[in-house]
């Protein structure tokens, strides 16, 4: 990220402007961060305090969090979200890497057509699939079950594309040598190629996890009972109640973001490259 850093120092403006720029960027950042800080503040306010003009809570209370955890199924939604996202991530990493390997390292009949079908499907809005699937899933009795939230996210078109790109950068000689040694095709994939493709695999996993974790319309349509909601659907539900309790909703917003924010700061490099990789590479 810093290849051109040292070369361009001579186009630097005067120190005064450097400070102005720094202060400007900092102010913009403050504006960007403020809604989230505001949510945190509001989540610690008493019910009446939300209406009062101050920014900080007059007294810091945990009642919103207590109410959230005792009166709603928040923990259940969290569990559902984690189960579904981890499930989609694991299954998606498996199917995308296998298919990506086949597209990169074998020649087979129908290869090009299949690959471009997958790529072309990426520009079709997901809303198109929701309508027939709703009818089909209802017939199959899959509405309100976990598989219906896991399976569609596993077949990630972009995941397949990325794995194919990565596998095709690995040398073919590796495969030939292993085949001469009598290595089976499955072992070839599992113990030789897959470990080498770990960076791409991680990125695909993160992509699928985030897509599943954030998805709203799909679980909104497919999940019918409150105990099967995911976090977005549950929180949206709290928000659309007759007299929404803002403190409680903000507590839910903060608490549901915490796991992701923690993961983000631990894996920021991977996550940022995961989310932007595709755009830059394709």
């Amino acid at each position, binding site marked *: *990220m810093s290849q051109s850093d040292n070369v361009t120092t001579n186009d630097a403006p005067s120190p005064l402007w450097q400070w102005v720029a720094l202060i400007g960027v900092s102010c913009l950042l403050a504006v960007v961060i403020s809604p989230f800080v505001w949510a945190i503040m509001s989540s610690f306010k008493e019910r009446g305090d939300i209406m009062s003009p101050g920014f900080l809570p007059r007294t810091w209370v945990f009642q919103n969090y207590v109410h959230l955890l005792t009166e709603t199924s928040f923990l259940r939604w969290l569990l559902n979200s984690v189960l579904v996202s981890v499930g989609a991530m694991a299954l998606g990493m498996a199917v995308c890497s296998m298919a990506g390997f086949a597209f990169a390292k074998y020649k087979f009949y129908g290869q090009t057509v299949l690959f471009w079908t997958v790529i072309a499907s990426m520009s079709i809005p997901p809303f198109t699939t929701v309508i027939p699937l709703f009818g089909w899933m209802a017939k199959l009795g899959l509405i309100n079950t976990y598989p219906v939230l896991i399976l569609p996210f596993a077949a990630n078109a972009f995941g397949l594309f990325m794995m194919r790109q990565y596998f095709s950068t690995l040398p073919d000689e590796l495969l030939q040598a292993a085949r001469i040694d009598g290595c089976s095709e499955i072992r070839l994939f599992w113990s030789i190629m897959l470990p080498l493709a770990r960076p791409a695999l991680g990125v695909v996993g993160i992509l699928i996890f985030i897509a599943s974790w954030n998805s709203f319309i799909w679980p909104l349509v497919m999940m019918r009972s409150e105990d099967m909601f995911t976090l977005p659907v549950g929180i949206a539900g709290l928000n659309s109640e007759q007299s929404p309790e803002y403190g409680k909703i903000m507590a839910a917003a903060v608490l549901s973001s915490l796991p992701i*924010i923690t993961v983000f700061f631990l894996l*920021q490099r991977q996550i940022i490259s995961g989310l932007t990789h595709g755009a830059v590479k*394709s």
Partner: protein
Amino acid sequence: MTSPSSILGKAGSLKRASAERRLLAERITPYLFILPFFVLFGSFWIGPIAASFGYSFTAWRGITPPTFIGLQNYQVLWNDPRFHTAVSNTLLFTFLYVTLANALALALALLLNASWLRFRQFFRTAFFFPMTISMVVSAVIFQMVYAGDVGLISKLGAVVGIRTPSWLVDDDLAVWAIIIMRVWRTMGYYTIIYLAGLQTVPSDLREAARIDGANGWQIFRYVTLPVIRPVMLVCVVISTISALEMFDEPMILTQGGPADATLTVAMYLYQQGFQFLQLGQAAAASYILTLIILIISVVQRLTIGREQQ
């Protein structure tokens, strides 16, 4: 007694048999590898996409089997003023959002790319942060920013002594409220992509331009911009497609109101399909949305991607 040649022959045919098995295995293997992916992809993407096209020519209420009605769904949409509103809202949203998000992201990327700026690495991560918060949670949080009396904006206004309007109940402001929120959430993402593009601009080229007496704007226009054009195309196309499919924000912040001012095609489709159970009509609407997306993407490729060749 077996002759040496027959032994050789046997060994040869054995070898051939195993080579054939090997070849067969190699021929079948790729299909086995792609099978799991395509079972899922076929049943959850290709199948439904194709079926949706078929259903768009039927009257389908979910419980009863669909009946063929020809182009009637498309005709109904053509004559439905609410659908017109949804389409024009979506196009307006997309235009404003794409322009604003890309202009801001590019400006921020140019600044964060400057070697003299302190804490650059920190800023890059920090601006990306909103992207990790889910769209639904962002919408819920922004409700607390925009809300009439209890909102952050109205409280800030009270401090300076200004009575700020209620964002979410005003026709024009509700549109901006949604756009600002979306820009807030995604700006850091596009900034990172633009930064990656800016890093490919050769610094000696900029240096040469400077020595030739080009000013900052000229360097940007004639050196930087041509190099980052492909990255710009990607950002514009991605942001356009995502905006044309907008659903979560209006659904949560405004429910499409006030007076359908924030009704998008995706919301219209959801209401027709899952609230009024007009699934055939919703399928037709989804295909019109697909068509709009395809046309706009092609136009963008032709205009922004033009000078690449």
